[in-house]
């Protein structure tokens, strides 16, 4: 057994024993026509519609208007620290000017934050989802802990379909955490009533830069 | 077209009027009907309860009995499904018995599909219900794989016209399920109660049901509760629409 493997080797031998000899069939072919959603019209419109249906708020802006738009969205958030993802601050230096925003908060600040501002790596029009990979300048908690999360998306990064998006990932080079966010956190566990903001964000704004 | 009639045990014993209506309608649309009296059961109770050997023997019997017939028509969805969907699988592939079971499976149709799809029958006018009457459709579980609920609804509309009203959870089991109804009578009863509640809510005073098992269950529940809802097979309604004479049964 290799060094990362412990436990009972019987698991593998019982599986091998259960294999049927006549099962050399190749993996089924994927027919893209039945897998991919048909998207009519511009991807951006489709994405925005599905994102709204998933309970997120979308806004389309020009890049120059980003700080002003985010500032106005922050007025609707609770009081508390605002977290700005370092990777996004690098891409959009103008955001550093936002009042009191933290790039490297303490744990106390992270857990008392009212809002987080992060960038999306990609978006999926079919489902209205935003993809975000964790990384050194993209801390996991920024898009999770605060009640309000603002996700900045460049319109050029919208992909049509989940299948296309995952198919383009490099299987040998996946980030430690990749999350597809499709709406505010929610639950219907109590009386089948949908309530948002259970553990994760209760309000998700998607600010789409059209000329990015 | 020549057809053999597979009447099924329940319809034979409890609903002879349905059988008479099936024959009258088929004849009306130009079929010659043969009823081979040797027929008994399709083996569904055996199959459903894991008695595959018994089921195999009965399917083989039916394949022999209906060998001369061009097509076979059956008023029951579940017995048709037994022969069509489960019959061939009881025999080893490649053998003569399998081939015969497949031949039978290929030529047997539930009455509804046979009338509207194979014969392409159309009614000039819908069944003459009393003025103001409303009808609704129970979709028997065993129609799954034979007719979709949407198709069944379209056909019912063809039979009763605008009198058709929707039934909530029309495709939910009525609680019959053969031995299940007796073995787990309390659960079965709850399922029946839900079906009857939906039926009451629909406001219909006629329930179309092309399956004798469901009919026995639903009608039995209606009778116990003293509800004046009539349950009828499509064949009976078509025969009535065409004004075909049916024998009195009592």
């Amino acid at each position, binding site marked *: 057994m290799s060094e990362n493997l412990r436990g009972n080797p019987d698991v593998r031998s019982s*599986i091998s024993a259960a294999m049927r000899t006549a099962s050399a069939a190749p993996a089924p072919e994927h027919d893209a026509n039945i*897998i991919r959603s048909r998207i009519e019209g511009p991807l951006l419109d489709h994405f925005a519609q599905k994102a709204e249906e998933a309970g997120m708020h979308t806004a389309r802006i020009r890049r120059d208007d980003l700080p002003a738009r985010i500032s106005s969205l922050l007025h609707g958030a609770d009081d508390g620290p605002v977290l700005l993802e370092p990777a996004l601050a690098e891409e959009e230096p103008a955001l550093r000017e936002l009042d009191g925003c933290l790039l490297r908060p303490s744990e106390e600040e992270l857990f008392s934050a009212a809002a987080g501002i992060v960038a999306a790596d990609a978006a999926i029009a079919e489902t209205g989802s935003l993809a975000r990979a964790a990384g050194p300048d993209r801390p*996991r908690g920024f898009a999770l*802990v605060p009640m309000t999360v603002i996700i900045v998306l460049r319109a050029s990064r919208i992909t049509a379909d989940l299948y296309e998006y995952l198919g383009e990932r490099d299987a040998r080079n996946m980030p430690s955490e990749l999350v597809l966010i499709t709406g505010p956190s929610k639950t219907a566990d109590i009386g089948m009533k949908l309530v948002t903001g259970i*553990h994760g964000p209760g309000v998700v704004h998607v600010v789409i830069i059209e000329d990015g | 077209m020549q057809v053999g009639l597979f009447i099924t045990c329940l319809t034979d014993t409890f609903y002879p009027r349905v*059988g008479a209506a099936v024959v009258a309608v088929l004849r009306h649309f130009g079929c010659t009907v043969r009823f081979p009296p040797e027929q008994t059961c399709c083996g569904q109770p055996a*199959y459903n309860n894991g008695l595959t050997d018994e089921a195999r023997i009965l399917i083989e019997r039916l394949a022999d009995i209906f060998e001369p017939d061009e097509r076979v028509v059956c008023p029951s969805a579940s017995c048709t499904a037994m022969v069509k969907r489960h019959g061939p699988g009881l025999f080893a592939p490649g053998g003569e018995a399998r081939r015969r079971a497949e031949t039978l499976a290929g030529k047997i149709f539930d009455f509804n599909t046979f009338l509207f799809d194979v014969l392409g029958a159309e009614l000039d006018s819908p069944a003459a219900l009393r003025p103001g009457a409303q009808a609704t459709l129970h979709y028997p579980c065993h129609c799954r794989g034979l007719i979709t609920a949407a198709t069944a609804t379209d056909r019912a509309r063809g039979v009763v016209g605008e009198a058709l009203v929707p039934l909530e959870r029309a495709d939910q*089991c009525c609680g019959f399920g053969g031995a*299940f109804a007796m073995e787990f009578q309390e659960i079965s009863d709850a399922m029946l109660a839900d079906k009857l509640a939906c039926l009451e809510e629909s406001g219909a005073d006629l329930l179309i049901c092309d399956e004798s098992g469901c009919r026995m269950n639903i009608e039995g529940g209606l*009778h116990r509760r003293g509800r004046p809802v009539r349950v009828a097979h499509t064949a009976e309604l078509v025969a009535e629409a065409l004004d075909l004479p049916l024998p009195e049964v009592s």
Partner: protein
Amino acid sequence: MNGPETFRARARAALADGRLRRAVLEATIERERKRRTACAELPDAEALRELARRIRDHTLDHLDGYLASLIDSFRRLGVQVHLASTAEEANAAVVEIARQHDCRRAVKSKSMLSEELELNEALGEAAIDVTETDLGEFLLQLDDDRPSHLTCPAVHKDVASCADTFRRKLGAPYAEDPEALVRIARATMRDVFRRADLAITGANFAIAESGTIVLVMNEGNGRFCVLKPKVHVALMGIEKIVPTLKDAAVLLKLLGKSATAQRLSVETHFLTGPKQNDERDGPEHMHVVIVDSGRSAMLGGTYREALRCIRCGACLNVCPVYRSIGGHAYGGVYPGPIGKLLSGLLEAGSGGDAATLPHASSLCGACLEVCPVQIDIPDLLISMRADQASRRDHRPKKTRLIRAAMLAMRSEGRYRLAQRLLRFALRLRAEDGWVRGSPTLTAGWTKAQRDLPAAPAKSFRDLWREDRI
């Protein structure tokens, strides 16, 4: 679990519980209605289900190879793998991991496998504190209750019962208000997430080519679990393997829609290895416990296709029996149609009714119609009945009676005799053409709220013979 000991007794208790029945019926009807709408969006839902089935079958056909490649990917990523043949081995592995890293406070996201293993009990014995973080599971943990649905664990509890739990166990003010209760849960759980040192999750899929654990959730608790703790343990059954990211995409398209009528769940979470050195948050150590516990035996036998299951719960929502009795009556960890199969097939979490459950179905086929991977549950239930019927010593009484009836059906003469006897017996007891109560064979029929029609004087074949048709 407390309460009656047999399926029949639990079902009877559930049928008498109006509050439970209303909650379950409303929830399941609503979920099924939404599922249909969601699936109607797919370009060709049937073809996609077919493809999903083939992907699952292909994987199971080559499971040894895909397991090897998954383990290879984990090695590349520095993920420690633990193989467990039984529930005991799996639990021991988790406890050992906790000890190795000196973990005391675990947070757990929803995992049916962990229920099957009774992991929480094992952790408790090892003095490791564990908190369920899915809201439904949290409510159940507070009450020492069990999930009654695969994706909606507390479906049997109504708002009042949830409010009562929070009042009794958390000292919260009583409020029959889902919003207020959710706020309480959010506040309570924040500290728990922050202080936890061990994250325990299940795995919806494990992707062989990339070594990725996929978790599908809506509440944000899955992401929170892997935020602060330094150790992450993911539990998976051997059947959770998916070869490629593209295969996972196909299954994800069906999972969200089938389970909760979502195009994609709120968080579809791909975890590939521990955090990288320069990342701020995330576990430093990642372990995966791969559990057999009866699965390899299924793989080699008649019930292999039940391993296709992706635990969406659609079969529960559409099942008229589940709708009538809810999930607890089934007794095992997995309720509903798929539970009737798994209870008898898996080693752990089976409950004591494995022999009864396959019969408690009208074989209506609604489950097969909605299953995203086309598991022919009715057919497999029939196979289980056949297994019982072939065991001469344990053949159920019902089976013996049906066998006798079927023997009669082999000849026209005996059929007609049986028909005449039945007609005679019914007509003897009938009033106005109906039998209202009957002893012996058909007692189960009339004991329920239904009468039995007396057969007409002439059968169809009588009329035919008399040339009246």
